[in-house]
């Protein structure tokens, strides 16, 4: 959902899922730039559409370079050519976004493997027995800051900040994907002893999820930001 008070078209998070391919992608466009939503959408789309499989044998930098390269070409083609100042000056800085992509593959009837690649502070959590047992790339809430690494549309500094990991998913376990503000909240819920399975189930059953999260933002429990949460329960 967009920031509280903003319109849906002002939302700069992006997420895409292809359950058949086992692909999940989430991206948080930086509000300091312009066309950040477009950039975030292109990163997630080009991961989902890519024929390349993200596996233990992947070379993370090369894998991500291919996605970023395609996204840059698409971005240049979609940016209007008749921008006036200040947009014409702002676009020279480029667009920026975090990126987290995960590929899930079957091992057998009750378990799966996954591989994930990321730049920035959008997170994936593995929840087992009502608690976070694994998180990537952020391991604890103190690691969040105001300047996460970002993939830029114009230059390559993201290459120094690529993270890659592998994991498993068994029946009864859950993966949750979240952009930073929701991710931070999940860490805080977990650290204060809350039953995360019940929390996520309550959200899932809530008929007005937007209002639920608006209340959390208005009570300053979640930071004022675009919010994205995707929950995958393997049952």
């Amino acid at each position: 959902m967009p920031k509280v008070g903003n319109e849906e078209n002002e939302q700069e998070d992006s997420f895409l899922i292809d359950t058949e391919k086992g692909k999940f992608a989430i991206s948080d466009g930086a509000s300091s730039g312009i066309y950040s939503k477009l950039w975030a959408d292109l990163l997630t789309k080009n991961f989902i559409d890519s024929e390349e499989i993200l596996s233990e044998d992947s070379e993370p930098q090369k894998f991500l370079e291919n996605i970023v390269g395609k996204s840059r070409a698409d971005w240049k083609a979609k940016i209007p050519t008749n921008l006036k100042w200040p947009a014409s000056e702002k676009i020279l800085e480029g667009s920026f976004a975090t990126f987290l992509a995960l590929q899930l593959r079957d091992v057998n009837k009750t378990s799966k493997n996954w591989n994930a690649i990321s730049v920035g502070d959008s997170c994936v959590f593995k929840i087992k027995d009502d608690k976070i047992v694994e998180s990537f790339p952020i391991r604890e809430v103190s690691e969040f800051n105001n300047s996460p690494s970002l993939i830029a549309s114009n230059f390559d500094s993201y290459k120094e900040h690529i993270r890659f990991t592998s994991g498993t998913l068994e029946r009864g376990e859950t993966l949750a994907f979240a952009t930073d503000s929701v991710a931070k909240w999940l860490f805080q819920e977990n650290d204060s002893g809350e039953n995360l399975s019940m929390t996520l189930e309550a959200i899932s059953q809530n008929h007005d999820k937007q209002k639920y999260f608006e209340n959390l933002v208005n009570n300053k429990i979640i930071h004022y930001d675009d919010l994205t949460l995707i929950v995958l329960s393997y049952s």
Partner: protein
Amino acid sequence: MSDPFGNTGFSKAQGAADALNNFIRTLILKCTKGEGEVRDYFEIAVIGYGAQSDTASSLLAGGIMKISDLEKHPLDRVTVPKKIPDGAGGIVEINEEIPIWVKPEAGSNTPMAQAVNLAHQMISDWSNNHPNSYPPILVNITDGEATGDDPEPLAEQVKQLTTSDGNMLLWNCHITNNPSNPVYFPNSEGSLPDQFAQKMFRMSSQIPSSMVSTAKEVLKLPGIDQNSRTMAYNADLISMIQFIDIGTRTTLR
């Protein structure tokens, strides 16, 4: 303000006007979001004083103006040279037209009390209409030699204005002919070399704790602490812009 600016060779009035125009341009860029629309995170007023004897007046046609209106309605456009890559590894100079909102006007007097009084009226009205806003920031750019009434008591009144988020802040940017080293965010009056700078210190707000780390990072000054005042002394043009910019960074987070 018609005297030379530090070692630059151009007048303080031109320097102040350039700083303000650069500041407004930078702020517009910071507020440009989404697909290029300018979002009204700020409203700005500019008060000039001393150009016409002992008066102060609002320099923007709309008084306190939304940032999007400033973008749509500059006072004028000027052509400046700009160096850009030529695509073949070299640099080429082009002429670029940029918007400006204030023009330099220098006078012989510095009726700072009139300016602070006018600012107090404008900010008081604005705060009443925006009670939950981030507190206004008043940035005073001057050579410090106030003439006429003492502005210090009025500065104290200005610093008492509040919104629900706290007291408004008074920043003073002091320009002098003295080519000694500039001082930013001093934390003691005794460290300042003359009575005008010391008055500026007393008139300035204590730096908010939320701005301390930004100020240290931008100006590379580890000595800035919670006792520092929002003041710059003998600032050059680029540091003046950085100084003013610090005040907006925290509010945009």
